[in-house]
């Protein structure tokens, strides 16, 4: 009896594997192999000279990782990226949650219009947007400084002062990306059954209580997902500094990924760049696991 069940289970799992095979093969060829290749590459000094003649390739073991850890520019890039994540992720989550609640509210008119308008930055090209933002952030002609000086505040050299360049990038990135999370949160909000609110209101709950005790607890799984996606996405900051500042001023907007890009594709130090990629990968993995654990704790209480 149990033997028969086993064979049937075996046959079933075999056909299951068979069905999954095409997808697995694709993942293997286009994801796993390159990743393994890059890992191997990170133990070599693959560079321009090695590209010309493989004889110039040297196996260097952990040398790239060691060099990386003593390169000040890497630590600076990691610091910049961390600042970006710490400033950007909460801002982005608050902005998307706020926007989702506003668009979801029954008091809002022209919902479709707002939903589209707030989502629009996500689908516009960053390069075009960056051009506009460069003018908005311009020290002497920019709209933002115009408003600041009107309020009696000093004008800020947004893209020229190393203390303000990262906040400027955060501003751009949050504005550009919050619409995406907004749509996800909006869908979750609309999934919350109306009778829960009704019951709460019958008990005399205010709008704030409804938000605090009905909407937010039910949004926790979605918020976890959104924050994990946002953190890992923001750690991969690249395009914004690439088009806005090229890493300047004083390397204050060089992110880890930007550093990797320059090493890999500008100077062709592919071995070293692969090492950067794996360090970043390990970092994001650890952070995601931490977040998941934290979310599970939150869910239990």
């Amino acid at each position, binding site marked *: 009896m149990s033997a028969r069940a086993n064979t049937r289970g075996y046959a079933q799992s075999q056909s299951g594997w068979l069905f999954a095979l095409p997808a697995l093969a694709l993942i293997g060829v286009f994801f796993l192999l390159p990743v393994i290749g890059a890992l191997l590459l990170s133990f070599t*000094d693959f*560079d*321009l*000279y090695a*590209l*010309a*003649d493989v004889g*110039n390739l040297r196996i260097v073991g952990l040398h790239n990782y060691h060099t990386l850890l003593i390169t000040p520019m890497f630590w600076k890039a990691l610091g910049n990226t961390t600042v970006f994540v710490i400033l950007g992720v909460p801002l982005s989550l608050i902005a998307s949650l706020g926007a989702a609640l506003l668009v979801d509210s029954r008091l809002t008119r022209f919902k479709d219009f707002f939903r589209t308008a707030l989502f629009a930055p996500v689908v516009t090209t960053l390069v075009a947007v960056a051009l506009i933002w*460069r*003018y908005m952030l*311009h*020290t002497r*002609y920019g709209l933002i400084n115009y408003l600041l000086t009107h309020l009696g505040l000093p004008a800020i*050299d947004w*893209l*020229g002062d*190393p203390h303000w360049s990262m906040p400027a990038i955060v501003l751009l990135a949050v504005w550009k990306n919050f619409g995406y999370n907004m749509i996800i949160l909006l869908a979750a909000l609309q999934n919350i059954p109306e009778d829960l609110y009704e019951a709460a209101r019958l008990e005399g709950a205010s709008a704030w209580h409804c938000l605090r005790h009905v909407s937010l607890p039910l949004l926790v799984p979605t918020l976890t997902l959104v924050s994990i996606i946002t953190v890992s996405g923001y750690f991969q900051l690249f395009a914004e500094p690439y088009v*806005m*500042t*090229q890493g*300047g*001023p*004083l*390397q204050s907007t060089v992110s880890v990924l930007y550093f990797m890009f320059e090493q890999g*594709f*500008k*100077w*062709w130090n592919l071995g070293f760049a692969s090492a950067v990629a794996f360090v970043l990968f390990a970092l994001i993995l650890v952070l995601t696991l931490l977040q998941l654990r934290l979310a599970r704790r939150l869910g239990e209480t």
Partner: protein
Amino acid sequence: MGVEAEVLAQLLPEFERTHPLVKVEIQQLAWTAAHEKLLTAVAGDATPDLCQLGNSWIPELVALKALEPLATHLASSREIQAEDYFSGVWQTNTVDDTLYAVPWYVDTRLLFYRRDLLKAAGFDAPAQTWSGWLTQLRAIKRMVGPQRYAVLMPLNEFEPLQILALEQSEPMLREGGRYGNFRSESFRHALGFYRDLFAESLAPTMTNQQVANVWNEMGKGFFSFYISGPWNIAEFKRRLPPELQSSWMTAPMPGPDGPGVSNAGGSSLVILHSSKHQQSAWELLEFLSTPAIQQRFYELTGDLPPRRSSWQGGAIATDPYTQAFRTQLERLRTFPQVPEWEEIMQEMRIMAERVVQGQQDVNSAVTAFDAQVDDMLAKRRWMLARQQNKAAATP
């Protein structure tokens, strides 16, 4: 690349008429992406027959063994004579005494300046020495006040400092491009001069992006001098209003103690080693190098021809703004021909920005930078040592 590829399409029918068996296909690349794309093309074995190349990239592609040596073609050519080319730019096409490319156009940099503002400050023409120039810059600064500047040296460009360093007697690398030589008296002098321009507020601590529109700003007198290249002649002609057209001019670089040298930038034409149409590629290269074609090319693009005979006719012979370039082209200095050069220059720019912003003094900056450059050249030293050992082993 860029506008050159568009213009080339207009010149090619003439070539195809005289060479009926050859069909030329052009692939256009954006300058900003060209370097990456070319290296990827070499890695993926998808190179063209003939290619335009920024001449600072030549050592890199030579290291990749991607370029065909041109000596034999040159020896039998009636069209191209090395002596007719400006020697500074011809040298950038030669790596370890082997010719790999023929210059197509030159991008050297020199002074663009506001004649009227210089005149108002009490000078008829830009000085030819650093000290004279400094006097002029200070006079302009006194005249225009704290909100304006005398010269623009964008912090995102390494070229201005590179030129100041090239003007010095000692080279930036030593022992055949094996080690950095940035702690030399020469480089420290150049970096000190550069830093002082910012420290005295003669130059704004700004990048091009922050200035946003350099042509407008020069028109408004935000700065009076700007170190830039020939592509800006057309831009200034087009973007400055008619009443300002007579108030700007170009002048050769001033040097530490007399007329200065400048960098030998520009584009060259190369034949790729993997090409199956070497002879046709060479014929096209010759066609593009004839003075008549180069003069028309200048009229269409504003790119300056690299050979003296091309300067003797057409619009280029009479344009007032190009004459300073003609003078400067006789005084070019080649940067070290190592593949790591561009990376070294980018890092130099970063180092110089720290010095300008007061985060590091000149002496400690150049010492640390030399160590950094030595690291970048470590692989090159290893390769050169290995080649020497091999050469010694084979009798």
